[in-house]
């Protein structure tokens, strides 16, 4: 790591999360006071112009890439005004972005924003003069032109500031850098990028404008190894750039990606007052070209090295794996992972197959990627995120109560993300299912499965209708325009905003949560009620309603004498597959004209916590309001036969139907120690993928996890640690040994 990067990284951690982009609030207030009466699309464009024209230009001493908001600590008087203004001008509905998308970076580099602006102006000038639709298109093009020009003007102000600074800089090396930056900002993002440096500057500048000015999170850096490669190769060949220079430029950008999102974790400590707080920024490398060849190149490795060397929260590196992937690159990925780098790996074979099944043409499907978190899409060709989180656990509850919600509890405190960014989640709804039979009608296990599946199908259809209403009446109605449309293919030609029919593809993610908890519950009922007969459904329902109060022996039998998903047990795994298949097939039948085609996923993200909060006790022995299983994986503490058995169970799920979602697997560093460690990790992942696995995020278990396991052993029963020559369950070791392993994990992660 060059000294400059080390200094920038150090400053990052010294930043104060209490700072605010105050100029933006003030600009929005001015615009609204002066132009609040304008039509919404025009008002948006004027807001964009006002912010970009009045915000400060910030250049820090080690910068090589420019563009950042001026965030300041407010005085007491300003804090009082912030409190007064924030309701109306911090996140106003008339200047709103959903984020969660990947701009068409290739289009930005090849055309530049001025070409987009000129095309929009030309179309506005030549469009038919009358008709409501034509007027709407004209309004759209005019707004696009104003926004593009605003961003280019802001970049020109950066160029001026860098040039002025250069003139007053005595150090010739730094002066040359500033002059280079001034020239780059004068050129991009308005015009096509001609060098690697200009390309990185162009992408970063837009990324910064989207995050900080438009104000949203989870924009992705895209497939940088593909997008930047032509200019990288060109500059390397002409000796205008070295590999180390390229790493330094990328790392300069990566550090900036972390600066405006805050250092605190907003789930636990929401200090930062910023619309892009905690933005998860995916960077995708590897994968295939549109023709199906291995897309890995030198830049794939360079991105990996740059990220691994920095070890910051962002960007989130994702690797697309396929059987023809460059072995040396793949080996480097595995080595980085086993040293503790946080890297997600997607299986191209499964994701592309699922996209083909959804009707996406092969070449487009090969261009897929994910943005945060684990959301599948076709970069530069889709609107912003649309999704719905289902709870299969709730479907089971409804099936056991003939469609009446037995636990109509809502979480009293929603996590901040849902308050801030996702008003459309399911938590405000009342769950009610169709009557699928009272317990005495459920004479066989097949009857029960039929009831659960009917509840699942109903829930999917209900949610699609719910979301359709939400989009039509609320989301789309209140947000007719956003600047991102300038960077999504087809929007300009169609004269439509990306969220209103401008983008080529539109989809909606339907995610199923609590799969393993539901499958474990059904397997327990199958064994206890229908096979061994030591429990009746009516009795079980009473025990669940009482949250197993006074029924601890029953709970322990359900926990320990019934099969659990994640142990390669065909019976319970088969139930999980059956439920997942039912869910996915139902989702696939929905293709709503408003919300798009529905893409199924087996996924919870961290929402398993509130799925748990909204669910009563379950027949697998889980207590009310406690977390359910996560994503595609087993319920924590229930998989006891090691990682291969867990992966075998997961591979039985119909993952070939789900382009999105993911799964984390936690391993202790000692499992992958030694020179063969990367190969062992590679074998584990590739064997899983060969069986149909979709995604893995390997976490080399941290000391924190081990400490959590000490605090709560029941939830960590399956945590395997390797002790020389054999493996042991961490929670069975004595305190002293555990402490030693914690010390070992700490050492292993420190570099």
């Amino acid at each position, binding site marked *: 790591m060059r000294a400059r990067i080390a200094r920038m990284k150090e400053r990052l951690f010294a930043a104060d999360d209490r700072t605010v982009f105050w100029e933006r609030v003030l600009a929005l207030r001015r615009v609204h006071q002066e132009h609040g009466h304008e039509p919404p699309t025009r008002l948006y464009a004027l807001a964009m112009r006002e912010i970009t024209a009045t915000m400060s230009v910030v250049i820090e001493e080690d910068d090589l890439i420019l563009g950042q908001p001026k965030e300041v600590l407010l005085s007491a008087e300003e804090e009082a005004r912030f409190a007064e203004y924030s309701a109306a001008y911090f996140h106003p509905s008339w200047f709103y972005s959903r984020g969660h998308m990947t701009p068409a970076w290739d289009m930005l580099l090849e055309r530049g924003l001025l070409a987009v602006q000129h095309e929009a102006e030309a179309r506005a000038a030549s469009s038919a003069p009358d008709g409501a639709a034509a007027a709407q298109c004209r309004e759209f093009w005019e707004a696009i032109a104003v926004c593009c020009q605003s961003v280019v003007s802001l970049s020109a102000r950066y160029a001026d500031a860098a040039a002025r600074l250069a003139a007053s800089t005595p150090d010739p090396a730094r002066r040359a850098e500033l002059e280079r930056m001034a020239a780059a900002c004068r050129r991009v993002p308005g015009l096509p990028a001609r060098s690697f440096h200009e390309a990185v500057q162009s992408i970063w500048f837009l990324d910064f404008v989207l995050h900080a000015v438009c104000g949203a999170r989870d924009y992705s850096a895209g497939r940088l190894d593909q997008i930047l490669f032509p200019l990288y190769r060109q500059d390397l060949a002409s000796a205008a750039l070295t590999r180390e220079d390229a790493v330094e430029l990328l790392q300069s950008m990566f550090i900036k990606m972390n600066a405006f999102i805050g250092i605190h974790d907003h789930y636990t400590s929401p200090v930062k007052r910023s619309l892009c707080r905690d933005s998860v920024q995916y960077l995708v490398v590897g994968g295939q070209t549109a023709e199906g060849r291995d897309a890995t190149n030198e830049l794939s490795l360079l991105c990996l090295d740059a990220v691994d060397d920095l070890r910051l929260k962002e960007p989130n590196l994702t690797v697309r794996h396929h059987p023809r992937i460059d072995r040396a690159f793949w080996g480097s990925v595995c080595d980085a992972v086993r040293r503790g780098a946080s890297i997600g790996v997607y299986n191209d074979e499964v994701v592309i197959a699922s996209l083909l099944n959804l009707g996406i043409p092969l070449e487009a499907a090969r261009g897929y990627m994910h943005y945060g978190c684990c959301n599948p899409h076709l970069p530069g060709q889709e609107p912003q995120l649309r999704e719905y989180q289902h709870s299969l656990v709730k479907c089971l509850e409804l099936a056991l109560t003939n469609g009446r919600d037995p636990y109509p509890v809502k979480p009293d405190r929603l996590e901040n993300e849902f308050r801030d960014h996702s008003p459309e989640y399911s938590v405000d709804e009342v769950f009610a299912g169709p009557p699928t039979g009272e317990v005495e009608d459920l004479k066989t296990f097949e009857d029960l499965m039929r009831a659960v599946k009917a509840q699942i199908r109903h829930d999917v259809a209900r949610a699609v209708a719910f979301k359709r209403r939400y989009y039509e009446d609320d989301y789309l109605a209140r947000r007719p325009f956003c600047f991102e449309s300038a960077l999504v293919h087809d929007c300009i030609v169609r004269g439509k905003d990306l969220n209103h029919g401008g983008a080529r593809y539109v989809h909606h993610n339907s995610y199923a949560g609590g799969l393993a908890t539901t499958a474990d519950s059904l397997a327990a009922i199958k064994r206890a009620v229908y096979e061994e007969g030591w429990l009746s459904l009516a009795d079980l329902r009473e025990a669940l309603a009482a949250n197993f109060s006074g029924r601890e022996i029953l709970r322990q039998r359900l926990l320990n004498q019934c099969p659990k998903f994640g142990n*390669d047990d065909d019976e319970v795994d088969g139930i999980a597959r059956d439920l997942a298949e039912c869910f996915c097939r139902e989702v696939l039948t929905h293709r709503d004209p408003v919300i798009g085609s529905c893409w199924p996923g087996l996924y919870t993200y961290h929402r398993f916590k509130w799925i748990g909060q909204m669910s009563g006790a379950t027949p697998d022995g889980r207590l009310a309001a406690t977390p359910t299983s996560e994503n595609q994986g087993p319920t924590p503490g229930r998989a006891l036969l090691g990682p*291969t*058995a867990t992966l*075998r169970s997961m591979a039985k799920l119909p993952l070939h139907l789900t382009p999105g979602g993911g799964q984390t697997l936690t391993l202790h560093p000692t499992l992958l*120690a*030694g*020179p*063969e460690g990367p*190969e*062992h990790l*590679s*074998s*584990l992942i*590739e*064997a*899983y993928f*060969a*069986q149909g696995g979709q995604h893995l995020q390997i976490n080399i278990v941290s000391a924190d996890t081990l400490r959590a396991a000490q605090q709560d052993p029941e939830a960590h029963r399956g945590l395997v640690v390797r*002790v*020389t*020559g*054999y493996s*042991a369950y961490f929670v*069975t*070791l*004595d305190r*002293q*040994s555990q402490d030693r392993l914690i010390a070992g994990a700490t050492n292993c992660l420190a570099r």
Partner: protein
Amino acid sequence: MPVHAVVQMIERDRPFYETSGGGVTLSGGEPTFQPEFAAALLAECRSRGIRTAIQTAGWCSSEALESLLRHTNLVLFDLKTMNPEQHQHVLGKPLAPVIARVRQVAESGRRLLVRVPVVPGFNDDGASLDSILSFAAEVTDQVAFIAYHRLGAAKYRRLGREDPMGQTGEPRPGVLRHAAALAAANGLTVRA
């Protein structure tokens, strides 16, 4: 549990053997104590194309070992000391037959990994380690060190039994570094 039932469980992980080049290891207890079952299981694995390994301390007849070796690719052989008196006194058995079994493995042409438990106060001095390693160098080219650990202490306590090794601690890191250097001096590769 019959052989076919065990094989059925082993077969479940086949995809992982295929990508890793790994296979099945019959570990402790001591597989040579159940030579018929172990040999049948190893033979069945091999006939299915699954690589096999055994872990042994070598306290068995040459016939028993031979019956296993026939179906084994790799032998992990634990060797604790080269001192006959110490072997007899601490381990309660003569050393000579163990040495004969090590040589038997070497002559069979199977891959052999000599594993040396490093126990403070027993074999962690330079002379003891060097005598083990110079012998190991005669029969193989790879060796592994297993640092004595105290992870069993909790179990002794829970069972209310006295810990016969209660006074022995874990080896200092310097000892393992020295052991690795001695191995290298004897031309041995140290495995994880």
